[in-house]
């Protein structure tokens, strides 16, 4: 696994948010490849290499950015399934969501999220948040060794 293949999995159903997040990555000069999935089930298919993603390479993403409100299976459900599986149990996962409801934050952390970030309305602030996230999780943070 070389540095260039550090994939980011973006789990987000809102097209606008996908576009803005990708724009923020670009403007923060994060060159990592980004895979976008639109719902919780698709996210798990990708992570566990099954369904429409059965044919993809087995290299896991380096970082999962997870929205909470998703069709079919919500973000907390995805997180729960990830942490229950040895292949993704330690995968760095950041919750990036509109909600700052206390119960969501608590639920996110208790299910094993590594970070909880709220999407600010101000895009400048959002950009700042994504930049810091990228630096921290993709450059600074030491990821756990592959299982």
């Amino acid at each position, binding site marked *: 696994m070389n540095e260039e293949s550090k994939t980011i999995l973006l789990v987000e159903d809102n097209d606008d948010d996908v576009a803005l997040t990708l*724009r923020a990555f670009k403007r923060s000069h994060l060159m990592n490849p980004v895979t976008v999935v639109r719902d919780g089930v698709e996210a798990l298919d990708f992570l566990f290499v099954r369904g429409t993603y059965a044919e993809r390479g087995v290299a896991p993403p380096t970082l999962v950015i997870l929205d*909470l409100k998703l069709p079919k299976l919500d973000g907390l459900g995805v997180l729960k399934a990830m942490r229950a599986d040895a292949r993704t149990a330690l995968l760095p996962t950041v919750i990036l969501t*509109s*909600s700052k409801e*206390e119960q969501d934050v608590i639920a996110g952390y208790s299910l094993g999220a590594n970070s909880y970030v709220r*999407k600010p*309305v*101000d895009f*400048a602030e959002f950009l700042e948040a994504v930049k810091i996230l990228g630096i921290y999780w993709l450059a600074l943070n030491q990821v756990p060794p592959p299982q």
Partner: protein
Amino acid sequence: MKIRTKAAIAATMMLGTMVLISASIGWADAQVRAAVAQQRHSVEIASALNNMRMVTFEYLLNRRDRARFQEQVVWERLERLLANPVALDGVAARMLAGLRGQGEDSHRLFSEVEASAAADPADDVQRRFEAQLSSRILILQQNSLVQAEQLIRDAGERIDETQRHVVVITGLGLMVMALLTAATAWFFRRDVLRPIARLELATREVAAGNWSFELDVGSSDELGDMARHFDAMTRALRDSFNRLQVSNRDLVVLNKELESFSYSVSHDLRSPLRSMDGFSLALLEDYGDRLDEDARDSLQRIRAASQRMGRLIDELLGLARVTRAELRLQDVDLSAMAEEILSTLAKTEPGRRVRWEIEHGIRVRGDRELVAIALQNLLANAWKFTSKVKEAVIRVGTRDEDGEQVCFVSDNGAGFDMAYAARLFGAFQRLHHERDFPGTGVGLATVQRVMHRHGWSLGAHAALGEGATFYFRPTEQVDERREQDHPAG
């Protein structure tokens, strides 16, 4: 029948029986006295009759003058006794009257014997007549004696009979009293003790929360009334408890709806705002050089409006959270909290020169998070409204008002006209123009909610251009209902 009536009947019957017994004893005493008097009188009569008989015998045998004289004395005694008869009843009175007649006859015959004896002692006819008279006297006297003894015996029998009557009446009376006592005890047990025990059980059951417990006492006495009132009270309590439960359930449902509403607001309403702001900025960044000043200004306005709506939503959610949050009371160091908040404000606006004076050691008992939210809003307001003053001063302190501690936050900023003070604590109510002092108008509403949750009173005093003072009374008495926001069940 009322218990009072029953008690009155029992007491009257007791008293009646006692009066009856007393009367019978009194009657018996009078009877015995009368009988004893008759007996004594009759004994004297009998003794006089006996003497009479003896002197008559003596005279008839010896014909001595002494005997004649004695007969006269004894007769006078007898006559005196018979002149004042002591009789128990009609029978005795008739017998005494008879005795008097016989005595008079006997005395008259005695005089005739005397006269005959004085006439001619040798006359045979006279002798036979005399002997006839003598035997009539003796028979009369004998009869009288028998009757007098009969009177004595009658009196004795009367005494015995009276005694028997007294024994019987007293015995019967005591039996009646014993029966009455037993009946009273039984009634007391049935009508008083048992209902009281049931009532006691009922109060315990109802106190333990068994609302369906009913006494259902059918008796028409005072305790029956009490039991019916008790049942009515239990029913009323049960009804209001049920109504309370229903409204509590409604409240819980409403609360859940409110929660899911604010959840949606925080999620769904913010998302389009983010798009508006983000894509406006993208336009500005990517095509800014191809747009004229007006177009760029419009895009900036879209961004500003989106961000402002984002803040409004956040503050509205904050207000809802303050209303919903559970109170956790603890000692809060208000002075340290104010110092921290003001230091942070100073850091966010390093260009501002604000002096602050915080009284040391202000402590209140409240919910740390909520108190922090309130203080943050008050101090941020003070900070904001002193932005146009040269020498800005913010004070946090306490003063004593009728022995109660009153905390205040004051500034020397823009202040406001007290005429509009009524609108001060309403959500989205603003007393200044947005272009002078930006804000959403939720801050003081939030402060007011925090105070309300604690049961503290909040007030303000200000004058236009002379600063504002907000004060609150952190009384210990927290509304119990607010602490138990989530009803059991």
